[in-house]
């Protein structure tokens, strides 16, 4: 029998935050710390139960929000080793940097599993005074004319919840904002679909395979053959007793090329460089999640009368800054809401301070600086693939020992490289990349 949600003890809050992910929880945490009466809604049975990341949390930006978070947060490993593998079907050029200096406070990156991390983070918000309703889904936004005044919720609570300000942190699919007509429907070209598999392996075996000590960890960015030559990316993360491997490809590309991501990941797992890492691992979770990757040009309107959009729902995410963009958008939304509550005004004009805060921070500066990158890849889909193949070919020739003089070998390598691409074409491609990446 379907359990019917009860009536809540109260139905009016100063601020309603929809979604207890990295963005929503940050907003609720700072609002509660400022003494605001805030309700945090989570549709899953607990915060983190619907969330997925590669995943790392970046220490320097995060500690500005929650000082020394690593002392209490459920972090898995201290990431001290960062590698990039440029892969073809049978080979990989491996680049990397390891430093045990990253194993000292304030650290650099930690691997985290979101089910545990987000649950902990939400508990911090609750500790600070936020109300958290899990298993409670916002079905639609409530309006008074053009003013957002709350949301109709169902699940553990069935009621209309009113709020002076509503913060939409609903994640990659901004269904509430779309339904209400606040923003246009999301477009396939601006999203990548990621599949992540998590394998269980004993801690000591992971340490052996990745050459790690104790709780130190490794992350490997995968480029090239792991996406079967399609526009996409992937990575391998070490957790304490798990290895996560994820692959992401543009949703538009999957539809156009008619490939299924689950077939591609089977192939990745059997790659000769990856198979030995995962061998004998037990698959314990298989998840899928979309990430907005349209960059600056795909960011929708974020400010409305009585409401703001934060985190993934506003496209505020990228590979370099990971969760940090979402968290900071939550912080800026909270700061703006506190100001608005003091003024007692919740119009679009007052809440626009949220957008201004984003503009003046690394969040929008970074997205703006890189606004041409998504188009570079979609206009030059073979850019990555061609050069990754070339680099592997050259590396093969360098590594192979032929019964010829070194001078002859050098000539051979040069001719291989310039046969694949003319020097002029390479310079042109280099120019294209430099023009876009500043």
């Amino acid at each position, binding site marked *: 029998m379907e359990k019917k949600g009860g009536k809540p003890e109260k139905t009016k809050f100063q601020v309603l935050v929809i979604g207890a992910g990295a963005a929503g929880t940050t907003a609720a945490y700072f609002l509660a710390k400022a003494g605001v009466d805030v309700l945090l809604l989570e549709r899953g049975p607990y915060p983190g139960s619907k969330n997925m990341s590669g995943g790392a949390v970046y220490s320097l930006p995060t500690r500005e929000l929650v000082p020394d978070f690593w002392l209490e947060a459920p972090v898995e490993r201290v990431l001290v080793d960062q590698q990039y593998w440029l892969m073809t079907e049978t080979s990989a050029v491996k680049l990397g940097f390891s430093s045990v200096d990253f194993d000292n406070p304030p650290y650099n990156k930690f691997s985290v599993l979101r089910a545990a991390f987000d649950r902990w983070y939400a508990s911090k918000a609750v500790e600070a005074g936020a109300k958290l309703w899990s298993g409670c889904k916002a079905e639609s936004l409530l309006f008074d004319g053009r003013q957002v005044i709350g949301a109709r919720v169902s699940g553990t609570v069935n009621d209309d919840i009113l709020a002076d300000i509503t913060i939409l942190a609903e994640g990659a699919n901004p269904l509430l904002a779309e339904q209400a007509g606040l923003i246009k429907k999301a477009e396939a070209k601006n999203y990548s*679909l990621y599949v992540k598999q998590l394998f269980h392996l004993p801690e000591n075996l992971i340490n052996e395979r990745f050459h790690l000590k104790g709780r130190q960890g490794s992350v490997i960015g995968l480029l090239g053959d792991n996406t079967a030559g399609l526009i996409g990316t992937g990575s391998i993360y070490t957790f304490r007793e798990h290895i996560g491997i994820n692959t992401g490809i543009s949703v538009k590309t999957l539809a156009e090329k008619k490939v299924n991501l689950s077939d591609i990941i089977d192939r990745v797992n059997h790659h000769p460089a990856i198979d030995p890492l995962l061998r004998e691992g037990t698959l314990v979770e298989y998840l899928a999640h979309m990430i907005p990757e349209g960059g600056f040009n795909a960011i929708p309107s974020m400010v409305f009368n009585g409401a703001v959009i934060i985190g993934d729902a506003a496209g505020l995410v990228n590979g370099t800054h990971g969760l940090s963009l979402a968290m900071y958008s939550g912080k800026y939304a909270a700061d703006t809401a506190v100001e608005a509550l003091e003024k007692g005004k919740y119009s679009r004009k007052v809440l626009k301070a949220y957008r201004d805060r984003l503009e003046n921070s690394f969040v929008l500066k970074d997205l703006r600086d890189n606004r041409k990158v998504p188009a570079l890849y979609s206009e030059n889909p073979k850019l990555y693939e061609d050069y990754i193949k070339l680099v592997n070919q050259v590396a093969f020739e360098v590594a192979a020992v032929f019964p010829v003089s070194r001078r002859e070998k050098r000539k051979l390598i040069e001719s291989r490289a310039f046969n694949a691409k003319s020097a002029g074409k390479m310079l042109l491609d280099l120019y294209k990349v430099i023009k876009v990446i500043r």
Partner: protein
Amino acid sequence: MNLQKQVVVDCYHFSEPCVEIVAEKECDSCRDYVCLYVCPAGLFDVQNGEVVFNSSGICLECGACRLVCDNIRFRYPAGGQGVIHRFG
């Protein structure tokens, strides 16, 4: 096509499927089958030339299907229902 994906995830029962085909007739004339390719759980299939959605299968709630076909209405399961990430 192999649609049996190795999906390993916890799931609490759901009272309604996440995906609803808006107008089934539209699917009859469709030969693009983009839904089949984007669904990471392999919940769409073609049987006798018709697109069918496996409404008892576990939807991973990614929402990719809704971006590639306007004939698909996607919504999240009711509060507390659907997939439960143990790790994430």
